[in-house]
């Protein structure tokens, strides 16, 4: 079985981003970039399936600028077998990403696609579900456990009220939530080995997919900021303030 894992190059999760003063976007110059953390979890899950003998090959794919090669090399160093980079210069929306991934899935024929549940830059949380729709496959989003059983996968999902277990027919799309696993760090020998693993470059035109944006971004601004309030000296003073000043406690 082949497993496909799409990965996205995003601003590192530790970076405090800055909004450009002219409102045209977020300043990405000289900012540390990394693999989207949820995608790292997806890569880890695919590699574990391979190590458990349930998958033969793990193919990673990224849609992004030339530098997304680094992201793919990271995935290869973790243990993926080969990589595909679909080169684009601008941001590509989830719908167009899903169309490109559908084309890749059609060409590669994976039985399972594992994705991060959302990217931490645009926070859209759409790509996996959209890909599943376009392929006409089953979907298991927000996964915290995945067990393959024959031609089915039993997936535990993180839902609002707790956990939900579903069974999906393969081929399927799984999107990874935080607690699915803890991704490994690549060892130095594996980082060296990853440099020799195959990385194929493509363009959206190779797949005949139009990646024009459907959403027009009119403005990007700082969120409203909260000011620090006051420090209170005791529990009694806190209660007094909540009752008499803030008015959020009635008794």
């Amino acid at each position, binding site marked *: 079985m082949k497993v496909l894992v799409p990965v996205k190059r995003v*601003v590192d999760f530790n970076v*405090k*981003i800055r*909004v450009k003063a002219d409102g045209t976007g*977020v300043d990405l110059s000289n900012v540390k970039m990394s693999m989207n953390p949820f995608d790292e979890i997806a890569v880890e899950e695919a590699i574990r399936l391979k190590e458990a003998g349930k998958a033969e090959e793990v193919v990673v794919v990224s849609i992004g600028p030339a530098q997304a090669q680094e992201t793919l090399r990271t995935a290869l160093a973790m243990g993926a077998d080969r990589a595909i980079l679909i080169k684009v210069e601008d941001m590509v929306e*989830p*719908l167009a990403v*899903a169309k490109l991934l559908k084309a890749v899935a059609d060409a590669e024929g994976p039985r399972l696609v594992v994705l991060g549940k959302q990217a*931490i*830059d645009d*926070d*859209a*949380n*759409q790509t996996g*579900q*959209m*890909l599943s*729709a376009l392929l006409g496959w*089953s*979907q298991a*989003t*927000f996964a915290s456990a995945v067990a393959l059983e024959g031609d089915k996968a039993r997936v535990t*999902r*993180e*839902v*609002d*009220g*707790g*956990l939900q*277990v*579903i*069974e*999906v*027919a393969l081929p*399927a799309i799984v999107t990874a939530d*935080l607690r699915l696993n803890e991704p490994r760090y690549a060892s130095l020998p594996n980082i060296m080995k990853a440099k020799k693993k195959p990385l194929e470059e493509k363009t959206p035109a190779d797949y005949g997919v139009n990646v024009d*944006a*459907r*959403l027009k*971004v*009119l*403005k*990007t*601004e*700082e*969120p409203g900021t*909260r000011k*620090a*309030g*006051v*420090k*209170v000296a*005791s*529990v*009694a003073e*806190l209660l007094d303030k*909540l009752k008499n000043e*803030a008015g*959020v*406690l009635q008794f």
Partner: protein
Amino acid sequence: MAILLFAEHDNAALSDQTARTLTAARRIGGEIDILVAGKGAAAVAQAASAFQGVRKILLAEADALEHRLAEPAAALIVSLAGDYDTVIAPATTTGKNVLPRVAALLDVMQVSEIVEVVSADTFKRPIYAGNAIQTVQATDGKKVITVRTSGFEAAQAEGGSAPVETIGATADPRLSGFVENRLSESERPELASARIIVSGGRALGSEERFRQVILPVADKLGAAVGASRAAVDAGYAPNDWQVGQTGKVVAPELYVACGISGAIQHLAGMKDSKVIVAINKDEDAPIFQVADYGLVADIFDALPELERAL
């Protein structure tokens, strides 16, 4: 202009998230129909018909819709979508699961987790865990939107009498099947719609102490219980209590953060609360920068004292 609102419910009761999404739908403007997809959900449809300004309630019942799994729910919405120019749902785990599937099937780019309606096609939404707010205009013929409900007041379900129309479900694509729910049983209010939330962080130190210290205060206040990601990762609290970028985004009237340092990812989930209280031993904890009232104290002293004083 007509809007189809995909209702959030559990087949027994209509969620407050639906009422909040209705407020967002009203701001977009146009006739609003509410779709109740489920099984044995007639009471939910009846509850929804009490909203004013709703044209009708569509009730679709089938085995495959009982748990609103993505494939059958999306197929149903897509079959109805021809009559609507906007499909909207709360950004619950169900809404987030189903609507992008609908959007892709309609060849529409979804607008996720809006926090403000600027006009019928223009919306504000947070990106980078709420560290930037983007204003986007949707150019597709149809709009598919999820709503971050903490940004909208709940519409009152009273005075209306929208007719309930029973519709047939589409065939089950049989791609996925429900096995079981392992839901947290609780008498406490739901996190997403609670008026007061008491949250605990890693400083609690163990699941046992989390329960001993946080729960009595929450119960005295009639509050929902939240937790930071650190507390959830450490196993002190279940995952569905997590407040933050990757957990739930909440905006209660009162948020009490106990032993939570205030990582960006946690602040993203609660900074729109009306009043924030922080109790933390570390006076330099970032949580104090967003707190209206800060108490520098050991939570193991302050919380029992607070509980006794309530």
